[in-house]
């Protein structure tokens, strides 16, 4: 009996580790941010009020918290417009990354195994240079009379400079470029494991390669597509550096709004409220998706 019990205890312990991790590094910081989101900016140290005066004053402390920051987020069109804009840019980034990443991953998975390692290194290679420097390099490419304009002139397409820098196109280019590896890697992992025998079977049964792709390969690579899209979409919504360096006044993403509330306006509570809403916007669809999946599995 004791052997079984201790094994169970061990199993429970192993399961507890990720939960502990989650509580320590996600829930605890989130609680701090959430508490700040209900405070108000003040000339104080730290710059918000009320402050936690100990358990005895808990009633007074709680009574001073309010929803003003959240109602401001609803009232001022700046905030919800920035949220929508960020979601739009992130969605576009995901679509483009998928459109480029899928053929890339497919090709990588199709070559002889001895080449795959090298190709994989090529995908990871950019990470050896600082992310900031790679985004900065895009300024050199996109600036008026920059590398892109020069290259176009070289092949005879001379004309007015393109003036892409500080536009939405520049932001999208930078985003797709930066997030592409996060799409390619999970796709490659799924496609590599795909049983090629299934495709042969499909061909034997009279399917054209196109039909085989849409009925066999694509459905089987769906987990890779979902994982890649989530890895690109979620960080892309909150992206700050790329729109800051490559964007202009028209590309106001929520990350930048959060930055200026926190740093320029010293409004930590409002910045916290922006962050809380951002988290809800990102997590809620995922939770609903997971629920729907579970229900479907239960029904099946």
């Amino acid at each position, binding site marked *: 009996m004791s052997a079984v019990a201790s094994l169970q205890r061990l199993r429970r312990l192993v399961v507890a580790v990720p939960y502990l991790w989650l509580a320590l590094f996600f829930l605890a910081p989130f609680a701090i941010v959430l508490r700040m989101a209900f405070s108000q*900016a003040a*000339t*104080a*140290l*730290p*710059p918000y009020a009320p402050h936690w005066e100990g358990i005895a004053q808990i009633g007074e402390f709680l009574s001073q918290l309010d929803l003003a920051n959240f109602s401001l987020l609803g009232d001022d*069109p*700046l905030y919800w*417009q920035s949220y929508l804009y960020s979601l739009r840019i992130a969605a576009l980034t995901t679509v483009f990354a998928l459109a480029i990443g899928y053929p890339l991953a497919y090709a990588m998975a199709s070559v002889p195994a001895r080449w795959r390692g090298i190709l994989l290194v090529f995908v990871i290679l950019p990470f050896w240079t600082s992310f900031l420097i790679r985004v900065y390099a895009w*300024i050199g490419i996109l*600036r*008026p*009379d920059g590398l892109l304009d020069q290259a176009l002139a070289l092949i005879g397409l001379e004309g007015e400079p393109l*003036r892409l*820098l*500080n536009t939405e196109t520049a932001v999208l280019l930078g985003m797709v470029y930066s997030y592409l590896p996060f799409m390619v890697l999970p796709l490659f992992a799924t496609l590599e494991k795909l049983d090629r025998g299934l495709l042969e079977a499909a061909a034997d049964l009279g399917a054209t390669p196109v039909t085989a792709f849409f009925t066999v390969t694509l459905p089987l690579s769906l987990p890779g597509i979902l994982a890649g899209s989530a890895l690109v979409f979620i960080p892309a919504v909150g992206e700050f550096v790329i729109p*800051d*360096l490559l964007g*202009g*006044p*028209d590309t*106001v993403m929520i990350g930048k709004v959060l930055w*200026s509330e*926190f*740093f*320029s*306006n*010293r409004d930590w509570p409002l910045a916290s409220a922006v962050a809380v809403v951002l988290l809800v916007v990102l997590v809620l669809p995922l939770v609903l998706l997971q629920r729907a999946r579970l229900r479907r599995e239960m029904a099946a």
Partner: protein
Amino acid sequence: MGKTTKRLTEAIAACAIGLGLLAAPAAAQDKQLRIFNWSDYVDPEVLDAFKKETGITVVYDTFDQMETVETKLLAGKTGYDLIVVTASFLPRHIPLGLYQPVDREKAPNLKNLWPEIQTRLAKYDPGNKYAVNYMWGTTAVGYNTAKIKERLGPDAAVDSWKIVFEPEQLKKLSNCGVHVLDAVEEMFPAALRYLGLDPDSKKEADLNKAGELLRKIRPHIQKFHSSEYINALANGDICLAVGYSGDILQAKKRAEEAKNGVEIAYSIPKEGALMWFDSFVIPKDAANVEAALKFMDFVNKPEMAAKNSDFIQYASGNIAAKPLLSAAVRDNPGIYPSDEVMGRLYTITPYDQKSQRLVNRLWTRVKTGK
């Protein structure tokens, strides 16, 4: 000896060892001064000379934005002995008790500080109690001389805020590139001054008028950013930038070093411009106040102040350094303006909570064009 006593002695011994370990780095800390400053903002030779004279090792950490410093200060602990802070942040910080008063008796060279600058700085730090000015400058217009001539004609003069605030004229520069600082406290005073209003006005009606003016020029502005213009000017990517004198002169220097044919000039408009002051302060949690004072004293020796000013090409807050400067710095009106221009430079008082929120809102609307 009983078991308990033995355990107790062991515990005491362990504590003693622990204390010894703690005490050792503390002694080393006496010989260490931790400075938090902009990058390349002190001549490395001056740091070497300081170490040679005092035996104190300087740990020089850098930041790229004043906001980073402020966030560290407001969070409660910095870990530094000496920080360079821009004057406009002082009125918010001093009442919060973030700094220690400077004991001027221990830094006799502070007698060399420029009285005129001290008076102006006192607007932010009443009685000059906490901040010791290091460098100062202005916020005005940097431009690409060739491109401005090309767009606005050979006689175009960049001597007035008109170049920025006249929408019809700015339009001619829009496809050539215009950057302005993403900073409320820099852009609103300039707009108010151009409108003939008090640049320090906190009246709602005045601020609205300034916001209206800024909204009109917004379609022709490519970027609101507080540092990107340095590279953009130096590379010849843009025509015009409203920025800090030091940054624009740095862009000029970079273009000269790159020999890319780009010529940058800096102009203080005839209506006047806002002054900025970078000053040393000692944070409340400084571990080595003595060393911080020694450093402030050392960099205010006239020859050291001149060396730093020559190195970074900014105007020193030390008047005794001026005769020792190289002519290139001393005679540059963008660095040391004439007395007449000096008279037209202005400072502003900080926004209170209400007007701060108003200008922030106005500024956001300017930037997003809504």
